[in-house]
């Protein structure tokens, strides 16, 4: 937002590009859960573009992005966050976009030293080089700490009106925002991607481990964002809705998975991901019963809809005791 505003101050025509990888944390995803209802249900990129008065192009890169997550050339950060590869990928996509749409250069809001992996003095040139953007990539907030770029050399941008921010502190950015009269802005970098989240990364690693290969589809990574995930046996996992919002969300997937729900009592919708035999199904039903309002009853009837089938079956089971659910089952 700030980098774009700095360019707008110099009379440069700016349009925004926002890449949707499938791992983006948005108010909406959180809004599925009741506890987050107070959070604004807005897309921050759209909101920012409107505040700046610029157009925004949202680009679906879900499929292309898989290779970045699965095979990052520069490795992962603290979790499954391939930040340096991700930056290079996004700038490369932006370079392709500006070529196709007759724009002259790319700007990003990066600042030297802001992030430990992708925003270091030695990694910023890697992004410029590997993306193919080279000197058509300008970082207005720290440009005066970096080599001169094409837009500066050509006089399209006045280098003297750019900035020399560096380091982890965001105080200079906050001061500049205040100077521009910007009082509200989106969460700083890092919190906008599920791949930087420890719990989410654990679930994705579990998915890969059980499949025996590092692959995913969009539905897989969306489902990792919601519900309580339990893996009682290596061959299957249960995704248990924690409240009405999540149950409604999981409803959208009930035809793609085997779905279980208590019919004798109120309870959550549960999806079974994986393969199972009758013994597995019995265990799954007992767990579903535990999370229903029949948890203290001797018997709970569970309705089971096998994946892709219109024929449901029922199982009457005793709820599994809470002490019989080991912590290791929780993914």
């Amino acid at each position: 937002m700030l980098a774009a505003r700095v360019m707008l101050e110099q009379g440069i025509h700016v349009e925004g590009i926002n890449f949707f990888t499938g791992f983006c944390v948005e108010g909406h995803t959180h809004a599925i859960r009741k506890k987050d209802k107070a959070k604004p249900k807005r897309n921050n990129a759209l909101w920012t573009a409107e505040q700046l008065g610029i157009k925004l192009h949202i680009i679906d890169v879900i499929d292309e992005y898989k290779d970045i997550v699965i095979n990052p050339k520069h490795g992962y950060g603290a979790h499954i966050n391939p930040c340096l590869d991700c930056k290079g990928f996004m700038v490369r996509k932006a370079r392709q976009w500006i070529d196709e749409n007759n724009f002259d250069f790319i700007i990003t809001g990066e600042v030297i030293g802001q992030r430990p992996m992708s925003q270091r003095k030695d990694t910023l040139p890697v992004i410029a080089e590997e993306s193919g953007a080279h000197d058509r990539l300008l970082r207005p907030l720290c440009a005066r700490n970096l080599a001169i770029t094409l837009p500066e050399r050509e006089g399209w941008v006045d280098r003297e009106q750019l900035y020399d921010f560096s380091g982890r502190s965001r105080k200079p950015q906050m001061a500049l925002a205040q100077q521009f009269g910007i009082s509200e802005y989106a969460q700083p970098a890092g919190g906008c991607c599920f791949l930087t989240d420890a719990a989410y990364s654990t679930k994705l690693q579990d998915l890969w481990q059980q499949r025996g290969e590092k692959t995913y589809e969009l539905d897989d990574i969306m489902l990792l964002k919601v519900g309580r995930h339990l893996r009682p046996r290596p061959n299957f996992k249960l995704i248990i809705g924690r409240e009405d919002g999540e149950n409604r969300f999981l409803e959208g997937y009930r035809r793609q998975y085997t779905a279980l729900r208590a019919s004798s009592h109120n309870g959550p919708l549960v999806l079974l991901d994986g393969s199972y035999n009758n013994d597995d199904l019995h265990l799954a039903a007992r767990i579903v019963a535990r999370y229903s309002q029949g948890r203290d009853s001797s018997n709970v009837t569970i309705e089971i809809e096998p994946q892709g089938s219109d024929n449901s079956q029922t199982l009457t089971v005793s709820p599994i005791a809470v002490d019989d659910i080991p912590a290791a089952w929780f993914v």
Partner: protein
Amino acid sequence: MSQHQLDARRLLCPMPVIRTQNYIKNLNSGDILEVTCTDPGALNDVPTWCRINGHKVINTDAAEDEIRITIEVDGG
């Protein structure tokens, strides 16, 4: 002018916006597009995207589980 419908149900943000954006690329000025969504965020985001890009939201209908947003292409 022609009428079009887009089913963006069960898609989470920003997919309803992306589908709307990509669908409208192939429409003409004055065409009407009705987008059906289930993500409550679409109620905010689709109109924001329309304002930014010069389209006009002529109606929104938000029921309990389903949202319908009617857009006039280039009507903003």
